[in-house]
């Protein structure tokens, strides 16, 4: 695959050309391969390669002067001959921008040991054993009279971050997933599974297909239930949907400004307060760039400043962070500057999220949690989740591709879908039982946030607000 100039050369050239008081250059070299299918046949596919260069220029004081202004300009298809134009555009943007509220010193220099390595790449051959296995799964589906829909994607993104303060950081990030949806021939029954993967070597699509076939069997008996509050087993994918949204909503600055669920009445934040209420489960929500199987960029990468990140923090080293510790709100998303303003530790955004909720670190699997359910619902996934009220972080959304009625530990049939209205923060105080934490793929947000590990949770009174006729 043809790429533009070498990323390291682009970083050095842009920094050399810079006339700003300080500059950060990010080069992202990405390759992607994907397959998509519907009705047991391929619909679209493709490979792509791209390289984006982003130049962040600081004028009027790189040393953190209050007058410092910043310009951010990113372009694809930049080579050594056109990078100067980009650098100048970035400087012009800084000159035309007003003082930046988040102005701070650039992060002191350090270098990654693998700085000189070329970008990691992927191509269509990543599917060379997956595609035939998928073909087998199609054949099995046809034999059963069912239909398969889904998508497989693998991307490799390598970032090179350099700065006038001496940063030379490289991070190669593989990201992949398979989503498989099985429907009965008449489309009245539907089941879904999502599998995150770094390289497709660990994806057993035949086994996933068999699990979905079992779920379609469960759905043969239909049970109509009205709206109401039900004991509900949320699978890890759904817990990920809800926790990711709470994480995205956890900017310290919004909390301090009195406009978030983490703001305290009368001013200040809920840091240090328990979110677990009377629940015996005291969950810990954390991120760790070195977590096994969830490895992610170990430094801040910010292409724009906003409530929870600052372009001035680019390259800042990230470590393990507990956002909620044993049920207590322990940290919110900060920049160096918002942290200093609130006298809080510096805890920037990390691109993975882990919820540990089972006491002692071990807990039942989803199957075991279902097996100990006397009378309740087991969900497959949630969908179309949107914020209704930021004060409570009330979210709405739908159940999708299988709500199963569980009686005496056995699935006895499939229930209609529901619209829910629930707050992930409020749920933390109502966890009746938690399963063991496992790698999972958020159905709602997995495209943007791939790396999560979550337990299944039993909620005694999940709010199913109305019935959805969708199947």
């Amino acid at each position, binding site marked *: 695959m043809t790429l533009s100039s070498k990323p390291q050369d682009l970083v050095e050239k842009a920094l050399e050309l810079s006339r700003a008081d300080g500059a950060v250059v990010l080069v992202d070299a990405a390759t992607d391969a994907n*397959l998509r299918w519907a009705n047991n046949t391929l619909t679209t596919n493709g490979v792509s390669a791209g390289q984006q260069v982003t130049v962040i220029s600081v004028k009027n004081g790189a040393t953190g002067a209050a007058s410092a202004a910043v310009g951010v300009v990113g*372009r694809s*298809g930049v080579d050594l001959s056109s990078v100067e134009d980009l650098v100048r555009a970035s400087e012009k943007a800084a000159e035309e921008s007003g003082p930046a509220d988040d102005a701070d010193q650039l992060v002191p220099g350090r270098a990654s040991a693998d700085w000189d390595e070329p970008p990691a790449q992927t191509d269509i051959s990543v599917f060379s054993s997956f595609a035939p296995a998928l073909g087998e799964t199609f054949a099995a589906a046809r034999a059963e009279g069912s239909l398969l829909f889904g998508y497989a994607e693998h991307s490799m993104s390598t970032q090179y971050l350099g700065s006038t303060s001496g940063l030379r950081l490289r991070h190669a990030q593989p990201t992949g997933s398979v989503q498989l949806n099985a429907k009965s021939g008449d489309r009245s029954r539907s089941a879904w599974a999502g599998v995150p993967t770094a390289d497709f070597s660990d994806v057993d699509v035949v086994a996933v297909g068999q699990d979905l076939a079992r779920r379609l069997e469960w759905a043969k008996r239909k049970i109509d239930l009205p709206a109401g509050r039900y004991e509900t087993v949320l699978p890890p994918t759904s817990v990920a949907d809800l926790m990711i949204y709470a994480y995205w909503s956890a900017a310290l600055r919004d909390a301090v400004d009195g406009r978030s669920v983490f703001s305290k009445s009368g001013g200040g934040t809920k840091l240090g307060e328990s979110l677990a209420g009377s629940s015996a489960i005291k969950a810990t929500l954390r991120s760790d760039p070195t977590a096994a199987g969830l490895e992610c960029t170990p430094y801040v990468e910010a292409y724009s400043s906003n409530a929870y990140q600052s372009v001035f923090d680019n390259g800042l080293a990230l470590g393990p962070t507990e956002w909620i510790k044993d049920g207590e709100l322990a940290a919110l998303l900060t920049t160096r500057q918002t942290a200093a303003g609130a006298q809080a530790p510096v805890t920037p955004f990390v691109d993975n999220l882990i919820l540990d909720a089972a006491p002692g670190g071990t807990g039942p699997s989803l199957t075991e949690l279902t097996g100990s359910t006397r009378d309740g619902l087991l969900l497959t996934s949630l969908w179309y989740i949107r914020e209704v009220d930021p004060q409570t972080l009330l979210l709405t959304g739908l159940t999708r591709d299988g709500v199963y009625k569980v009686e005496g530990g056995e699935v006895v049939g499939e229930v209609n879908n529901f619209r829910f209205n629930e707050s992930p923060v409020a749920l933390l105080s109502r966890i009746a039982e938690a399963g063991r934490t496992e790698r999972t793929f958020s159905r709602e947000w997995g495209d943007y946030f791939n790396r999560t590990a979550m337990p299944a949770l039993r909620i005694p009174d999940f709010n199913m607000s109305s019935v959805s*006729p969708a199947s």
Partner: protein
Amino acid sequence: MTVDESFTSLPLGDLAEAALSRARALGAEHADFRVETVRSQNINLRDGHVDGVSDSSDRGLSVRVVYDGTWGFAAGVALDARTAAALAEQAVEVAKVSKPVNSEPVVLAPEPVHGEHVWVSSYEVNPFDVPDTEKIGHFQRWSERLLAADGVAHVDAGFQAVQECKYFADLAGNRLTQQRIRTEGALTAVAVDEDSGAFETMRTVAPPVGRGWEFFTGNEVFDWDAELDALPGLLRDKLTAPSVQAGEYDLVIDPSNLWLTIHESIGHATELDRALGYEAAYAGTSFATLDKLGTLKYGSPVMNITGDRVSEHGLGTVGFDDEGVQTQAWDIVKDGTLVGYQLDRRIAQLKGLNGGRSNGCAFADSAAHVPIQRMANVSLRPAPDGPSTKELISRVRRGLYIIGDKSWSIDMQRYNFQFTGQRAFLIEDGELKGQVKDFAYQATTTDFWGAMEAVGGPQTYVVGGSFQCGKGQPGQVAPVSHGAPAALFRGIRILNTVQEAGQ
């Protein structure tokens, strides 16, 4: 207006020739080639201070082929003939790898060939020609104006502009060069009651538009001055407004809110690729399946919905789609009955709809992505001599008048939806009363549109829309507009969102 010279000066014809001749030599049945430069700018201010300004430009090229009845697609960034030819080879290779999982040969609807054409959208001032200082200063002044008002604790301001340049060529002989401009601006005022910890927001309801910077410097298209004058008072009233009593209400819905309900419950539901299951694992399917075409009672007899990609300043408007099809306008719902879908060349051919012809709904959001069927401007038609909003309100004994979109969610078959809004006023005995807060309306699509008793006249018609309609895997975003008059709905379920949160 002309296409950006930095785009037209690229060796577009030579690149196309290199890619298409290689695809032809390799035996592709169909090949098309695109070069795109999509430039976008975001300016965000918080309390009048610059929060973030970013400017990005995404440029690339791609080749799509049908080879041995199977799609193949490859995209890259280097604009040279060697890369263009190599992408044609890769696209054929992708088709070969994919062949074992393809059981439905791809055939495209035959379409007229247009040869060479240039098309540019309708705008006056290219926002990328306006200095950043001027754009930032404009939104700073507006932010300060709001901050100076009683009860406004914070103000967020955001501006976004996009310039999309596309070149399309195919084996059939199309050579199409197009440019579109779009802009969007919004200010959100926040009020905080420190004692109770309660907070409320109120956002401007100016729509995103296929227009230039001129949209922000005058009050002709959208009355910014009136909106900014009214916003603080509306916000103060909302903070102290009573919480809505849950139950059934008649609703008069303003176009600034109704556009999104149209988008979700009609726009997406009448995309034929969804009805066929192409989006089943992701965006979802549709209750409006093909067997119901011509018979499904989508709504009441006053409901008329059109699709178009030709209305001036529409976000979905363009000269030719990303398969070289000339854009057009058509009926989707006529007198309450489903009569049409949104089509691209493959699905039009597959189902023989529209005389086996596409109606021009293929779109890719960048050169790196494959074109898929995307939404046209889908709009609710006003009644030719229809009533004013005030007249609609006068017909309601107990109801709500809802303005501005906010939260939205709908299920994967487009039945069950829930929407909130920027503000709602209580209607009692035909008169507007004060605001109520914490409201959401929840309904099933056909029940909701079936309960539409009247649509307003052309004087109530406003075009709303979004830059950010998401669909497809890999995910793509598309801009789309939706026109709507004010409309009256009977007996819709209103929820209290505080009660829903269990508080």
